[in-house]
């Protein structure tokens, strides 16, 4: 039953991907059914931007749905919600009026909320799942409230719920009015995208959901927040006001650094990946913000470059993050835990999963020759050209963005050394990890296909990037920012920067083979002797001697202690007869979340205080309630 639904969803995804690519290449169509939905009817419209995101959702859903057949195919639970989730995500980019958009958006949120609660219903980590679902519902609806406020303001001003009418009328509004609406919409969309400080739901909800759903939530759903930001800034409220771009750029840089800093200290494999999604959304937001700033400074070529880089990173992140979540799901499936301190040595028990995770890790760490490197490179090339904007304040924002992105890139390398090294290498740290089993064939097929997509997106950069730049050009008209030279070399802004990914891949392959061949030719390859790990003459090696996830992150906890504010708790349990016999030592050094401590905790307290005050009116006496109704009626009559 479940398997059938997943197979049908994969078909739906494949069809949508084809339709989306057709839309990117210029197919335009519109669909309007007035009677289906009140207040304006169902209205869909395909254009290049919508095509890109439909293709993204569709192409992402294909391998993930196949994976789900192996992961959860025998359970009926969750299959329908999953199908609704995918379908709703396909409608969001196509929606052409408020009602259609809000319905699809809310359906997407509710379906994913149901899937987040899966753990609670199945009795696994019930409390954690319920809490995650609660925070997710709260944040997503706070975001929806902001979106609705912004959209209703626009509807009131233009007298039309259709997006096309907003685009036509936007230039007639004042800067203040547009900025107000933009701020409301940006809050709503950034909450969905996971921009700091609105990211709090993401590290809770993504690990709680089943792994195939996590893959889609991190790989695809949060990108729809970016879609909304782009639509609002470049169509509904165009032309962009300069501070919008600067704000997005700063939020992006902060998200990138904060996301990866939390990822690096986490010991839960899936939560680490969820935090890393905040980092990657940050990179995308930096590209988007740069595009808006360049567009406002009348540099359309650079705006296109930055936007194409953001699109490229969106596509790449969808590929490697869904790959990583699928591999993490395979670890959970095979070893029964996602706590890295209980994992280890899985490369021997799960060679396929390990190889796929490694590909994803190299890609997300931004290392050549895979796709994460190429899109980060492109983003940097766009940022580095900010000198053409003649305002020192803008240049400063860009310099901060560059430094933040560079720090995030370096930390991401460390983070994924930890994620792969602790989970898959050395000795297993628990019984379950030692007896882990490899994923079923269909899950492996899905992972290998996604890993191949990561390589193809990098090697085919000279085809993908110009196509994405063409999509960007439908939003910001301008000259093509990237040309393709000999050896499929990407040439950015003339000769500002060049890169040929196939040549790098070829050179790397040759460079790796060369020492090997040379050693064979020199006959300098005596057979290695197998022995145990050297460790200062101790008698036997156990997993307790390995470096742990927490220990690996310790240099970062120390260097950034102003950020983590770790709390040290040392608890020594001594023998009652003599304090020289220690029975148990318990050491805890948890990091804290300053956004929670400084923003949400006071906010929650204030909300509760207000709620207590207003609770006075709720006395429980029916007579008083009747009096309220009477008073309300009188007031209404007086006002009318």
């Amino acid at each position: 039953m479940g398997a059938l639904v997943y197979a049908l969803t994969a078909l739906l995804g494949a069809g949508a991907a084809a339709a989306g690519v057709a839309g990117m290449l210029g197919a335009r169509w519109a669909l309007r059914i007035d009677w289906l939905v009140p207040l304006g009817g169902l209205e869909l419209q395909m254009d290049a931007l919508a095509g890109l995101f439909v293709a993204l959702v569709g192409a992402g859903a294909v391998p993930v749905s196949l994976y789900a057949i192996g992961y959860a195919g025998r359970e009926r639970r969750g299959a329908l919600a999953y199908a609704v989730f995918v379908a709703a995500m396909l409608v969001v980019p196509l929606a052409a009026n408020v009602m259609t958009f809000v319905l699809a958006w809310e359906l997407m949120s509710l379906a994913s909320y149901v899937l987040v609660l899966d753990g609670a219903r199945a009795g696994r980590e019930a409390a954690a799942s319920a809490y995650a679902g609660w925070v997710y519902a709260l944040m997503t609806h706070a975001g929806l409230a902001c979106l609705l406020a912004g959209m209703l303001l626009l509807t009131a001003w233009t007298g039309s719920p259709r997006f096309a009418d907003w685009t036509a009328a936007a230039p007639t509004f004042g800067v203040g009015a547009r900025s107000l609406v933009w701020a409301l919409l940006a809050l709503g969309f950034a909450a969905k995208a996971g921009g700091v400080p609105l990211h709090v739901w993401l590290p809770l909800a993504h690990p709680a959901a089943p792994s195939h759903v996590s893959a889609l939530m991190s790989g695809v759903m949060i990108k729809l927040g970016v879609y909304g930001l782009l639509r609002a800034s470049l169509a509904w409220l165009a032309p962009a006001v300069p501070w919008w771009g600067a704000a997005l750029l700063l939020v992006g840089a902060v998200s990138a650094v904060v996301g990866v800093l939390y990822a690096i200290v986490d010991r839960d494999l899936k939560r680490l990946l969820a935090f890393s999604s905040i980092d990657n959304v940050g990179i995308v937001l930096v590209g988007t913000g740069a595009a808006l700033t360049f567009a406002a400074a009348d540099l359309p070529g650079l705006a296109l470059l930055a936007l194409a880089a953001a699109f490229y990173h969106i596509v790449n992140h969808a590929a490697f993050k869904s790959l990583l979540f699928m591999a993490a799901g395979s670890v959970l499936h095979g070893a029964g835990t996602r706590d890295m301190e209980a994992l280890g040595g899985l490369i021997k028990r799960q060679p396929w999963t390990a190889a796929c995770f490694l590909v994803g890790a190299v890609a997300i760490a931004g290392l050549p020759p895979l796709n994460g490197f190429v899109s980060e490179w492109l983003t940097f090339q766009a940022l580095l050209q900010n000198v053409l904007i003649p305002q020192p304040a803008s240049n400063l924002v860009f310099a901060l963005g560059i430094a933040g992105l560079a720090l995030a890139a370096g930390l991401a390398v460390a983070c994924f050394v930890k994620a792969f090294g602790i989970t898959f290498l050395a000795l297993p740290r628990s019984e379950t990890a030692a007896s882990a089993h490899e994923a079923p064939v269909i899950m492996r097929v899905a992972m290998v296909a996604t890993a191949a997509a990561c390589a193809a997106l990098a090697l085919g950069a000279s085809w993908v990037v110009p196509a994405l730049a063409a999509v960007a050009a439908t939003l910001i008209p301008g000259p093509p920012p990237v040309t393709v030279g000999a050896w499929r070399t990407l040439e950015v802004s003339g000769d500002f920067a060049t890169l040929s990914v196939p040549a790098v891949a070829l050179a790397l392959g040759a460079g790796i083979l060369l020492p090997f061949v040379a050693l064979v030719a020199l006959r300098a390859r005596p057979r290695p002797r197998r022995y145990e790990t050297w460790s200062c003459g101790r008698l036997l090696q156990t997993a307790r001697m390995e470096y742990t996830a927490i220990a690996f992150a310790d240099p970062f906890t120390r260097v950034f202690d102003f950020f983590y504010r770790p709390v040290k708790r040392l608890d020594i349990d001594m023998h009652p007869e003599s304090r020289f016999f220690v029975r148990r030592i318990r050491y805890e050094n948890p990091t804290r979340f300053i956004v929670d401590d400084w923003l949400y905790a006071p906010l929650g307290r204030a909300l509760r205080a207000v709620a207590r005050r207003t609770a006075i009116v709720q006395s429980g006496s029916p007579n008083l309630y009747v009096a309220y109704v009477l008073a309300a009626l009188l007031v209404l009559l007086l006002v009318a």
Partner: protein
Amino acid sequence: MDVVLLAVLQAAVVALGAPLMVGTLRTLKARLVGHRGPVPWQPFLDLRKLLAKTPVVSDTTSWIFRATPYVLAGAMLVAALATPLLTSRPPLAFAGIILLMSLFLLGTFFLALAGLDAGSAFGGMGSSREVAVAALAEPTVMLAVFALALRANTTNLGGIVERVSAEPQLAINPAHLLAFVAFFIVMLAETGRLPVDNPATHLELTMIHEAMVLEYSGRHLALVEWASAMKLLVFLSLLANLFFPWGVPAGITPLAMLGGLLALGAKLVVLAGALALLETAIAKLRLFRVPELLAGSFALGVLSVSAVFLLR
């Protein structure tokens, strides 16, 4: 065809020059403290010895451990082909500095994994520290690149060399000099030199790089040592040719490249002398003081970028 010849030549220069460079550095350091020291070509003898030995591989390790030396050497060879050494048009002429730094990070990534693979605390400790230093050095590199790219209007390595040689006054610009110092500190951190790491020590608890490669032996160790030497050579050549691009020919005629090789050799000897002097004069920093040093170099990078904007 020219490109292939140039690639072979440049790879040979780096492959053979790197051990010689490390040997020269050791000899210079020994002489500075009054020892006779080994001969400059000692690293070649060490490599030959290591290649003849049977490597010992731990039972705990996986294919990652055995593949890493090759990946590392491969990444450093590609880095060597991407650097303007003998001419301003290296074999991989499209390469920019971001590619080069990412290649180094690729090597660090796999080496750090190999450090964890044997399951000993030493390897894990080395890996954790190595990636911490590499991650913290990254923003400085990007800011120094930014300062250079702002002046040259390109991030292409060959392009920067050509632009600075065409306008020699750029080389004495404050932004350029600040970027040089920032980059020099990053070089010390990335190649594991004093005061960040001591390449001569084998005391497990203080070292970074040596702890990470503790499990390697035989040909694997030979490859790792050779790759580390290549990284040092590429970094020093980068400092020499990007910041002082005198005598780097634009053409690839045999005579021009011979001139380029001699100029590079002279600059490297000067830089190696400076490095030997520095390493003799200062002590290793405590591990958790290293971030302060890197923060200092980051501040220099910020100053360098601001100087470009102020002086434009």
